Each structure stands twice: as structure tokens, then as C-alpha cells.
């Protein structure tokens, strides 16, 4: 996917001005936040907190022994007839899958939702090779028609209204326009059925891969992953190397967290576990199964001070609860992963120089860290990225100068008292009778949409000294 994250500020401004988008975002937000809160309350708060701790520890244990668990997964997957591929870069991942397709004369691919495939730009690559790619997740299907990237990792088309979907379907399917949601899903199902039956290869992501059994695992609500993974003669899984977990038992722990955190569901409608190829005598399943394990920047996290980010189980709770995401939507972030998780992942994956605003697009309100099912300290990780920016002179110079000037003065009480005294006086004068500053050079980010309430005129320290003097 083309990187647009360097334009966050401009794109966010455009999204704020988009009334339709704002209405769509408002509608979705309540569902996610209230749904999760209800599910957590039903689960029991203390038990939930214990499970979060357990899951964070589990993911940390995996990351500390990542090589061993990946080798174990490969061993067990190969034993069941799966071919395991290792892709160091996004380009490698595309090349591996394009080669599999070419070797097998693949002309049509069905896909269930995979953010890693968005990350590496797989659809574009396969289409360039003349292969038809059909997204079968309803949200992804809508966006494929709209020629847009996902704006949310769990609900990719959350930024669209049913009316917008109806327009897209009318154009694509040539049927009478309907805005009835069940009718729209039926229409999509009918359109997709034929593709499920005629695809040569199915490509799915994986929520996790299980080391002890060599299994890959996908959770969906639509059942499309079942059809993608079992019907075509070739099944190809693309996922990140950090997705490995040791045992089926561990999956049982994590699946209690994932759908509850994502949308307040106790369990998803479908859990698709795929282990190896069709065995002799079995009626269903692919003749070939490939698993492409992608690095593409993940090893930059492992072993670094940002490693906790790799615990992520892709539930989307951080973005659902983020007041910045809630107001600008996912496209503003300019790459695959929006919201707080994206503000940590994108700068490392695409280079911090291409995503300078993202670690700064947070008030550090802390809602993401509270919502995260694996206790990723997202604000702390964003702050570490800000440290890299500060140390590397990667932010605009006035920002850096401002901080350095401030701290130079704050370390020198006499100078500080003098500066504060005059700043309070001048700003108070600027505020006039109403005590409001309407515009201030250098602070236009504030004063464009807000007044700056002016200081009272005297600093506390001066008034306090006078009072002490009188006493």
C-alpha cells in the first residue's frame, strides 16, 4: 500500500471537514466502545484484568523465544504437508506468492481479510501478473469496489454508510438499488458465490499460527475464510512472524480477549483452523498449502524498547477508544494500520521520517492503554518514538527550540520568574477587557479554532512574595 503517512496533518484536516464521514464515524464509535464495555462487565472486571496480564505474559514469552516457536511451527506444519516460506521484505512476500500462482497456472484468487497482504501490496502485485483477485470479506469487498484501502483493521469499511454501499453495489451488480442491509449482504453473497466456486487459489491471513500443531487460524463473522481456505486447490496463508503462539491452549486464552475487545462479541461466528493439506481419503481441503511468514520490519521491534508492540493481537480496541481516531478516521493515518497501534507500527515499518506526525497524534489520554487486551503501553511507545525524533532532529525546528528555551529558563528560577512576569503582563494586556486572545503568532494551531484565555496579569510567585512580605 502506498505510504501517505507523511501527510497526516493535511489529511486529518480534510477528514474533519467531511460531514458524511463524520456522521459515519459517530455512528460506529458508540457500538465499539459500548459493546466492549458491556462484554468486559459481563466477563467480570477482575477476571478480565487477570486474563489481560496472562495474555501479555504469554505474548512476551513468545517474543523472547520467537525463533524457537517459529522453528517448531515450521516443523509441525511441514509434517502435515504445508510448505513454509520466509519473506524478509514486503517485496519477497509478493514474489513468493506470485511465483506459487504462476507455477500453478492460477487465474483467479479469492481472499479473506488480511492486513499483512495490504501491508505488502499483494493485490496490486497479483493483478499486475494478470490474476483476478476477489476480496470476500464484506467490508473488503465493498472497498475493492470503491478502490479504497481499509480504514479500520477489524471493520475495514466502517467509514462508509449503507447508502454509499448501495451506490457501489448498484454500479457493480447492475441490480435495483436497495439500502436494506440484509438485502445488500445477500447481494454480495450471490456475487461472491461464483468466485468461491471458481477460484484456483485462496489467500487468507492468520490471526495466529500455532507452533505445537502447525495450524493456522482465522477468526471471521462471515464464514468467508472457510470457503477461501477449503474450496480452491491451493491455500496460501500470509501473516507476520510475530503471530506465532505455542499451543492450542494459548489460543483458547487469546480468543476470549480478541472478539470482546474488538466489538464486544463473546466469540466470533467462525473460527477457522487449518492444518495441512487434504489427506488421502478426505473429501475437502486444498491440495497445496503454503504459509508465508513475513518480517517486513517486525524484527526491528523484537529486542528493542518498542518490543511490547509485537504483542498486538489486532483487535482494534486502541483505535476504537482513541479520541483522535474517532474524529479523523483511519484514512488520515495514511497507511495500513490506523490509530495508536499505527502511530507506533507505521513509523518503524515505513521509516519515522515518512510518518513524523503519527507519534505526535496523541494527547496521551491513555484510553488505548486501558483498552488494550495485551497491555501494550501505547502512549509510552509513542513517547519513545518522540524521543527518537527529538534526538534525531526530526521535528520542525521551532518545536525543538521552544522546548529547549523553555527548559533552559525552567532550570534557572530567577530568569524564569522574570520571563513569566513579563509573559503574564504582555499576554494579559493582549487579552484586553474580555481577557481573551484571539490570535497569537506561533500559536495559530490553538487560536484558529479557540480563544486563548489570557493570564490574570501577575504571577503566583510575585503575588505570594508580596503577601509574605506584608505578613
Amino acid at each position, binding site marked *: 500500500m502506498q505510504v501517505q503517512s507523511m501527510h497526516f*496533518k493535511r489529511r*486529518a*484536516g480534510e477528514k*474533519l471537514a467531511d460531514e458524511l464521514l463524520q456522521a459515519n464515524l459517530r455512528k460506529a464509535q458508540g457500538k465499539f466502545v459500548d459493546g466492549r464495555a458491556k462484554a468486559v462487565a459481563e466477563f467480570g472486571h477482575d477476571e478480565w484484568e487477570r486474563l489481560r496480564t496472562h495474555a501479555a505474559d504469554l505474548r512476551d514469552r513468545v517474543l523472547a523465544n520467537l525463533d524457537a516457536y517459529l522453528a517448531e511451527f515450521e516443523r509441525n506444519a511441514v509434517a502435515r504437508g504445508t510448505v513454509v516460506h520466509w519473506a524478509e521484505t514486503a517485496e519477497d512476500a509478493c514474489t513468493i506468492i506470485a511465483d506459487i500462482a504462476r507455477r500453478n497456472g492460477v487465474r483467479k484468487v479469492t481472499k479473506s481479510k488480511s492486513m499483512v497482504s495490504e501491508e505488502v501490496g499483494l493485490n496490486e502485485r497479483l493483478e499486475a501478473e494478470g490474476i483476478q483477485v476477489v476480496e470476500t470479506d464484506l467490508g473488503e469487498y465493498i472497498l475493492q469496489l470503491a478502490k479504497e484501502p481499509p480504514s479500520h483493521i477489524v471493520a475495514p469499511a466502517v467509514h462508509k454508510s449503507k447508502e454509499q454501499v448501495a451506490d457501489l453495489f448498484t454500479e457493480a451488480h447492475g441490480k435495483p438499488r436497495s439500502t436494506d442491509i440484509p438485502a445488500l449482504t445477500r447481494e454480495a453473497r450471490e456475487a461472491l458465490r461464483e468466485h468461491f466456486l471458481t477460484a484456483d487459489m485462496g489467500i487468507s491471513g492468520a490471526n495466529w499460527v500455532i507452533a505445537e500443531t502447525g495450524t493456522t487460524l482465522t477468526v471471521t463473522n462471515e464464514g468467508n475464510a472457510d470457503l477461501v481456505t477449503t474450496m480452491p486447490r491451493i491455500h496460501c496463508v500470509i501473516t507476520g512472524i510475530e503471530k506465532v503462539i505455542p499451543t492450542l491452549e494459548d489460543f483458547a486464552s487469546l480468543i476470549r480477549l480478541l472478539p470482546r475487545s474488538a466489538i464486544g462479541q463473546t466469540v466470533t461466528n467462525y473460527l477457522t483452523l487449518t492444518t495441512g493439506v487434504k489427506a488421502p481419503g478426505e473429501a475437502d481441503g486444498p491440495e497445496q498449502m503454503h504459509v508465508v511468514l513475513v518480517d517486513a520490519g517486525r524484527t526491528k521491534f523484537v529486542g528493542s524498547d518498542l518490543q511490547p508492540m509485537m504483542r498486538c493481537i489486532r483487535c482494534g480496541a486502541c483505535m476504537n477508544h482513541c*479520541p*483522535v481516531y474517532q*474524529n*479523523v478516521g483511519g484514512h488520515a493515518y495514511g497507511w495500513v494500520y490506523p490509530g495508536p497501534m499505527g502511530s507506533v507500527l507505521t513509523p518503524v515499518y515505513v521509516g519515522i521520517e515518512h510518518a513524523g*506526525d503519527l507519534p*505526535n*497524534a496523541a*494527547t*496521551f*489520554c*491513555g*484510553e488505548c*492503554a*486501558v483498552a488494550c487486551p495485551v497491555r501494550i503501553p501505547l502512549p*509510552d511507545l509513542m*513517547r519513545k*518514538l*518522540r*524521543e527518537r*525524533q*527529538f*534526538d534525531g532532529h526530526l*521535528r520542525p525546528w521551532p*518545536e525543538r527550540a521552544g*522546548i*529547549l528555551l*523553555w*527548559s533552559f*529558563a*525552567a*532550570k534557572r*528560577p530567577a530568569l524564569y520568574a522574570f520571563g*513569566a512576569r513579563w*509573559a*503574564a503582563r504582555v499576554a494579559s494586556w493582549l487579552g484586553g477587557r*474580555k481577557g*481573551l486572545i484571539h490570535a497569537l503568532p506561533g*500559536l*495559530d*494551531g*490553538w487560536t*484558529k*479554532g*479557540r*480563544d*486563548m*484565555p489570557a*493570564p*490574570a496579569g*501577575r*504571577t*503566583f*510567585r510575585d*503575588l*505570594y*512574595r508580596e503577601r509574605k512580605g506584608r505578613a
Partner: protein
Amino acid sequence: MKVGLFVTCLVDLSRPGIGFAALKLLEAAGCEVVVPATQTCCGQPGYNSGAREVSKALARKVLEEFEDCDYVVAPSGSCSGQVKLSYPQDLFADDPDRARFEALAAKWHELSDFLVNVLKVESVPGKWTGEVTYHDSCSGLRELGIKAEPRRLLALAGAEVKEMREAERCCGFGGTFSIKLGDISTRMSANKCASAKATGAGAIVGGDLGCLLNIEGRLRREGDHETKVLHFAQVIAGEG
């Protein structure tokens, strides 16, 4: 009992009345209050801008100024979170002085927390008639768990707290965020103002001046010059 008052840089510069309200409340409760004259800033602006070393220097200055107090009190959840969590758990986690910062953190309290949980006050000097709505600032709420304390104090002053929708949602201030990403910040403050005004309360009350300036600035720009925006210390000290 010697109580150090950490005024905070924003209160010193912009709303000294909040500092005097805090002083009045502490003295009314029988504390011997000291206000170190050299205090400036807890270092959070630098810390959150990635200037780690700079913020450490300011943290050491705070430590030296307040280390000999029995308690330290600040009318801010944000600065208190910086001192109570970021100093010992991050900035000085691997420092020989960690224990000193932990000791400072242990005796440091946000104002409402100190009044309610340490001093256990049963009355306050201020009287307030009518309704207010309370905005929970992020650091106080999510870092320090302050939620009931300011509401309890407002009730002691006679104020009726009408809860707004999404009282716990960020107002959009976020320190330098409010300037760096002003459009988003403004939208967030507009949302907060709408939630607060929907209660019909005559005053929006909070515990962090940054949030209050942000909310007031947006209210006034929207043409609302009636609704008061106050720190809870002003209300309960009778200086609103």
C-alpha cells in the same frame, strides 16, 4: 505537618487564583504550607516532546525543592502523574536515585486526593449554589484513579454535580498537541463543550488548568461568555 505546595507552571503564569485557593484550603485544614520560591515546572512538556534528558534535569530540581516536606500537593493530576509515575517508573527507573524519587512519589498528592484521602476533610470554606458539571482530566483519572474525590469536595461545598456524557473523554488539550495538531484538538474540545453544555450546568469544573484553558477557549470562541470554567479548588475555597 509540613506540606509543600507545587503550584504548577500554568497556574503560576495564568491563574494564580487557583494557587491561592489551594493554599487557603490546605491552611484551613490546619497544614503548615511551604511554597518553595525556586519551583518552576515538573518537566512534563519536555518529557512528552521526547526531550528526556531535559525533563530529567527538571525532575531533579523538583526533588531537591520538595524532598524535605512531609507531603507535597499539586492542584493538577497531570503534573502529579508525572512525579508519581514517570519519575520513578521511567525517567529514574535505573538510576541510583530511584529510591529518592519513589519516596517523593509516595508523599506527593493531587489536591483533591490529599484533601479527601489524607486530610479526610468533612467541610470546605466555599459555598456554591446550583449545578456544575465535572470534566475528568485524563492523567488524574487514568494514571491516579481520581474520580470520586473532586465530586465529594464539590458536594461538600453544596454544588450539585450534573454528569455530562463522556465525562472521561479527553478534552483535546494534550499539552503541545493542542498547538501541533490544532485542528484535531479543537474538534475534541468542541465535542467536550457540547457534552458539558448539554447538562445545562452553569459551570464546567475540572482539576487541571490545561484542560480548563482549552475548554474555556473553545466556549468563548463559540460565543458562550456565560458558562463559567473553574478549577474545583476555586469552587470549594469560595473563590469562584
